[in-house]
């Protein structure tokens, strides 16, 4: 079905303003993605999954400007022993990056068109493509077509340490389009960390193919810049007895849309996706998750917590689709917001669609204020209101943060949250 004319105009204008990298193994996949994008058109307010979040800034030709946050503070994961790969406004920084080499892992760059990256050639854009049904994700297709760089990671065994993708934002009008492809062979294990705002406007796709019994862990912190805009997608496919766990911390950001599309295709696989966000004022954060159970006895968990104040807006759209035959599915979903004042807003759209009869699926969504009883109890012990409020706020976020298995990573994120709360009191 052709998209309406207005939508087509926006889409064509955006396409015309971008240039597609040429001359490598990804050419065919990019052309294919461009055709997909043209057929569906970029999102607008009338699209079902964009009712709560205005996509204009993400689809317009002009890059919105975003002040660069000057901070002398260390990066969130700087104390974690990891292989660092650094991008400045989406441009790879060889100087600041470690050697792209690690035991059981091959690491290449998407921008390196000369390399014959056989495995990536057959995967690039494929999970994004299959993630377009039943819900279109045009920004993902745009990314596949126009990504300027990205990291291609092939994991054949247990990676000795995490890979940390560090995204610096340097220029006020920068735009970054990055596309990572990660393939874990049977039994392989890898943790990927991501930190930083990346650019004034960031479009990122991460495709993760998790083979049987492999395990992928992902923890990211989306920087502290207040004015940046980001649309990110994770597309993942899980084999038998494999594990996928992803956690995202978002503090600040004018607009964030994080899509996570998970397909459980092998029996007994586990997928957990969680997020904690804190926003003050000009902050709009949207988590959109789609989990498809298409195998026996798989477990999926979605845990999202949002702390909102001064007119900040939080959105959660989470769907569990259980296909016919996906018996013994165990699906859990919770999305909660803590509204620190009356101006803030949380919009939630939980969905369950189940075609198997022997499954357990539960979902819940709540919006609430600070518990006055608990606040008084703390104050009566001498804890000042501000510190008591911070404690209760961290407690609210704990259920999501505790989804991170690694204690060191968890502590690093809690520290960042504490810092944010301290800076945003009153």
């Amino acid at each position, binding site marked *: 079905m052709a998209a309406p004319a207005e939508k087509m105009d926006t889409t064509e204008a955006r396409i015309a303003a971008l240039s597609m990298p040429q001359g490598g193994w990804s050419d065919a996949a990019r052309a294919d993605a461009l055709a997909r994008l043209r057929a569906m058109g970029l999102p607008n307010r009338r699209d079902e999954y964009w009712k709560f979040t205005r996509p204009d800034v993400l689809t317009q030709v002009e890059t919105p400007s975003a002040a660069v946050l000057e901070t002398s503070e260390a990066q969130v994961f700087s104390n974690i022993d990891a292989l660092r790969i650094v991008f400045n406004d989406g441009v790879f920084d060889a100087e600041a990056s470690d050697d792209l080499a690690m035991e059981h892992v091959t690491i290449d760059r998407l921008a390196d068109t000369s390399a014959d990256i056989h495995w990536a050639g057959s995967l690039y854009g494929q999970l994004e493509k299959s993630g377009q049904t039943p819900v279109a994700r045009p920004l993902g297709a745009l990314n596949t077509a126009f990504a300027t760089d990205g990291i291609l990671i092939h994991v054949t065994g247990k990676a000795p340490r995490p890979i940390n993708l560090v995204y610096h934002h340097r220029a006020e009008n920068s735009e970054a389009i990055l596309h990572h492809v990660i393939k874990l062979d049977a039994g392989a294990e890898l943790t990927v960390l991501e930190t930083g705002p990346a650019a004034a406007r960031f479009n990122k796709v991460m495709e993760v193919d998790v083979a049987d019994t492999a395990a992928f862990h992902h923890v990211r912190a989306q920087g502290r810049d207040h004015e940046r805009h980001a649309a990110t997608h994770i597309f993942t496919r899980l084999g038998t007895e494999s594990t996928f766990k992803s956690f995202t911390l978002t503090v600040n950001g004018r607009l964030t849309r994080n899509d996570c599309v998970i397909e459980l295709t092998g029996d007994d696989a586990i997928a957990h996706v969680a997020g904690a966000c804190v926003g003050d004022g000009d902050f709009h954060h949207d988590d959109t998750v789609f989990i498809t159970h298409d195998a026996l006895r798989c477990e999926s968990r979605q845990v999202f917590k949002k702390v909102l104040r001064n007119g900040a807006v939080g959105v959660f759209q989470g769907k569990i689709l259980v296909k016919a035959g996906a018996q013994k599915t165990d699906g859990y979903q919770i999305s909660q917001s803590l509204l620190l004042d009356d101006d803030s807003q949380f919009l939630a759209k939980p969905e369950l669609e189940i075609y198997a009869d022997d499954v357990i699926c539960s979902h819940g969504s709540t919006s609430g204020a600070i518990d006055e*009883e608990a606040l008084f*109890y*703390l104050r009566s*012990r*001498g804890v000042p209101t501000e510190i008591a409020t911070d404690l209760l706020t961290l407690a609210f976020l704990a*259920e999501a943060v505790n989804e991170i298995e690694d204690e060191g990573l968890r502590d690093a994120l809690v520290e960042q949250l504490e810092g944010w709360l301290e800076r945003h009191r009153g």
Partner: protein
Amino acid sequence: MLTIKDLHVKLEEEDKQILKGVDLTVEAGKVHAIMGPNGSGKSTLSYVLSGRDGYEVTGGEAHLGDDDLLELEPEERAAAGLFLAFQYPVEIPGVGNMTFLRTAVNAQRKARGEEEMSAAEFLKVVRARAKELKIDADMLKRPVNVGFSGGEKKRNEILQMAMLEPKMCILDETDSGLDVDAMKLVADGVNALRSEGRGFLVITHYQRLLDHIKPDVVHIMADGRIVKTGGPELALEVENNGYADILAEVA
């Protein structure tokens, strides 16, 4: 130490007078008990003294030493040395008991201009105090009062009191819901804190707690007032005859 004069309190949301002129002085080193029928205003008195929302003081005053309690925020009252062991301790999911205790101790020290307790020193003290109250390591690690039994919650209140070393301790029905052994633990915890510089106000329904924590003075509260004051024998009188006689006598 604690001086309450002609205290009148109504509910903020309703036109309902709860305290109708309470006069009470607790001297340092003394234990005062307040007994009285349900609904007479005992908990309200303890809440108003500690600064809980929802009440309006319509007359009278309350001082702790030189501090005008009614002028202070709840946390300032705590730093000034006031402590209330709650009738219903609050559960706080997600906040570890240990973090809570340490934050409270150090916040009070900071407010008083004292040096904060180091993590190591704190751990040493808290372990010793917890042991006396038969509070195990697991209870210290768990979120504040979450999943605690009634007795565990009350012991946890006494642990907080022991760590915070307040000048003036108010215990609101700390004995309710306790079996004999737990009551003994709680009473021992309180008795260990008795000292010349510290005052206690023990609110209770029953004589049995007062067998363990020997009061110097016993007050009977009814309908928002202290209607009778006497020695420990007054508690026995209540135990044997109930409140009816006393209330008839003062009516």
